[in-house]
């Protein structure tokens, strides 16, 4: 869709021909296959994401030995058939802890992204559609939260609620929704000018119904693309917070805290750092690739 701003005459005529031009460019040879190629990429990465999710759900059953069981005789043991990724300082099997860590990280990242996307989009749509004081309040709140250093929030919440997953969810969640709110608001502001919204108002739709039936489906695509990319950022966020010791408590297995613990003895047991590091890297990579493919599909 080409948007011609400025005061050129007879806007309609241009839009029509632009659409024709873009449609013409659409059916150009390479554009067509490109679209199906991108769709293949999306399906492939969706499959990978699903695989990771299933692994994280079935982790308690796939685990070769007890992730929390310490045994003095195997401290900092090298990777062996019995301990595929070796053991850490307390002799715990790193492979099982990485699997259990997956359960924690992936599940909660997805949960957090879902929640922030829904909340952010809802507030963004309301701000964009109604404008006026709604818009002001929500946008000032967004500004304030963005200016608020996430670190202070995370640690303060850690202080109030104590460590653990709830703290990280709250810390990342409180500022996570602002991205979607701003995005949704921008989209809705431009969508509001479209004629089909005027037509919908004229055919007696209530504002609520217009927002739900007409506006939301048209901006959902953009939101999902950003959500996919945000999952990766959230994963790194979780790991970062537990790396600073604010996240999960000691016996729990979470990638960030495992890396933090193991960085001390990286020289004798590098696998203790590299295993969770690699797991984190791969998971974030898969989600980023999915986000990338989705945004290509949406046309930049």
């Amino acid at each position, binding site marked *: 869709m080409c948007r011609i701003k400025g005061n050129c005459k007879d806007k309609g005529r241009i839009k029509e021909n632009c659409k024709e031009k873009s449609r013409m460019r659409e059916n150009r040879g390479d554009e067509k296959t490109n679209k199906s190629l991108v769709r293949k990429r999306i399906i492939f990465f969706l499959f990978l994401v699903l695989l990771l999710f299933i692994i994280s759900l079935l982790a308690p059953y796939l685990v070769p030995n007890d992730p929390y069981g310490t045994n003095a005789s195997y401290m900092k043991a090298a990777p062996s058939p019995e301990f595929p990724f070796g053991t850490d300082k307390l002799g715990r099997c790193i492979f099982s802890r990485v699997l259990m860590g997956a359960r924690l990280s992936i599940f909660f990242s997805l949960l957090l992204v879902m929640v922030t996307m829904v909340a952010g989009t809802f507030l963004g749509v309301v701000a964009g559609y109604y404008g006026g004081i709604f818009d002001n309040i929500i946008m000032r709140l967004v500004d304030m939260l963005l200016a608020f250093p996430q670190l202070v929030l995370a640690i303060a919440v850690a202080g109030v609620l104590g460590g*653990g997953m709830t703290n990280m969810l709250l810390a990342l969640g409180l500022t996570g929704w602002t991205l979607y709110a701003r995005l949704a608001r921008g989209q809705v502001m431009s969508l509001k000018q479209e004629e089909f919204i005027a037509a919908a108002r004229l055919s007696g739709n209530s504002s609520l119904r217009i927002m739900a039936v007409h506006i939301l489906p048209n901006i959902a695509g953009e939101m999902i693309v950003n959500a996919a990319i945000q999952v990766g950022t959230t994963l790194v966020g979780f790991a970062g917070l537990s790396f600073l010791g604010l996240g999960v408590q000691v016996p729990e297995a979470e990638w960030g805290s495992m890396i933090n613990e193991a960085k*001390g003895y990286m020289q004798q047991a590098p696998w203790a750092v590299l295993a969770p590091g690699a797991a984190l890297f791969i998971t974030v990579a898969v989600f980023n690739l999915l986000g990338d493919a989705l945004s290509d599909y949406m046309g930049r």
Partner: protein
Amino acid sequence: MNKKIFVFLSILIVSAMALAGCRNHTGEGLPVNETEAAGEGREQEKKILRVSEAFVLETLNPHLDYQGWYTSIYGLTEALFAMDDQSSVKPVLAESAEAEGNEWTVKIKENACFSNGNPVTSGMVVRNLKNAGEINPRFSNLLDYNYKIIDDKTFRITTVEVYPTLLNDLASPELAIVDLDNSGDMAKELVATGPFVISKFEPGGTVEVARNDKYWGGEVKLDGAVFYYMPEADTSLMAMQNGELDSYTSVTSDAAEIYGQAPDTYKLVTVPATRLQFYILNENRLGAPVRKAINLAVDSEAIETYLNGTVTSTSGPFSPTAAYGKAAKAAVDPEGAKELLEADGYILNVDGYYEKDGQVLSLNIAYYAARSLDTLAALMQEQLGKIGIKVTLTCEEDPDGTYIATGDFDLALYCMIADKASDPYYFISCTLAEGAPYNCGGFSNGKAQAWIDELKVETDREKRAELANRIVQLAIDEDAFGYVALFNKTTVMRKGVTNVSENCPFDFYFLTADTDMD
């Protein structure tokens, strides 16, 4: 056409990198001062010891908070007395001190003088004590005493009531003696009596000291020293391996293992220090048999192996070398513990935990994630699990504000300095006395309280030690407290470095006149 773009782009990248690089170098606003490049420090003829420290000073005033600890570590300041390696008080600036009742007469050494040559007079010493009393709340009791200058080198202190451990207080590094007239506001300069003088001080950053030529206590072997602020223990390890450090203390267990593998380059010295890991059993919630079973199950030797080398298991709160550290605790006996529980009516349920009338025996351990308490909690969880006690862990970000204040715990872990000034009274009064801040497990025993009151005023050293042992043994036998381990003071020294107070259990001594490196 594209080639042209590519060439242009690569030039842009290279020039920007150079710009970014050199901009940093020449920028005046560099945070850390310029010192000689790493590594070759030792070749120059000057002997400069490079040390890393996990704490940083904002000002040089030794009387403020714990800054005295660090001015003492830097070898800048000395107090009237000090603690020796056997944790007993020895005179430094003071010659001698006699007490009759609550009157102490202190004589200052003839040759004691400041680094600017002025002699240490009793008037200056009294002014120092008063100054410390004013700005350091922990020594506010110094203001209640009255002081009388007898002559240039002697003065008399009269305490409100008989105060046998006055000398121990006078030995604390916070009561350092400083030339108050010539040290300005002690923000950047300091004139004191130590073997070294400050040469460059960056608040919150690196500290450099040089030999004090006019040192009253004899010849100072080193030319100077540099203290880097390195909060992250792993960074110190890497710096040491990289040849940028010569010695540092509080070495982590992982680092100790690496240094242990290269005995010809690094010398490791481990001494049990005064920091104690212990747990408080909540007598209001746990019955005597359960508490005894717990104490029988917790195996401090196994914990010592897991924390490989950073702690030494202990039965009492004080180091065994001290006269007052003779308490004993029952040997580990998991089977005995199980019998006790069964005798108390608990039956083992299907998933291996003890149950009594439908209720699983489950304990909550409250701890905070510092000083390896988190590892201790995990290990105790597993050890108690072996005798059928289900354990849940709660980590608090600030213990004193939460479980210590509210008593909301079954088992509370804590780590604090037990032997502050080589005298047992301080720790006992903080943890075992009625209403003591850390007596939050409901321990109250008339006999113990009587002994504590007697200890408060007892002046004779042997009697004090015997009283302390009796009180501590009582707390152990009543299963109110469980003393697990004493943190070691592990010091690593590059080959040729000697005398960095590595054998002294106290953390606040490091650089001395005899410190040397070849």
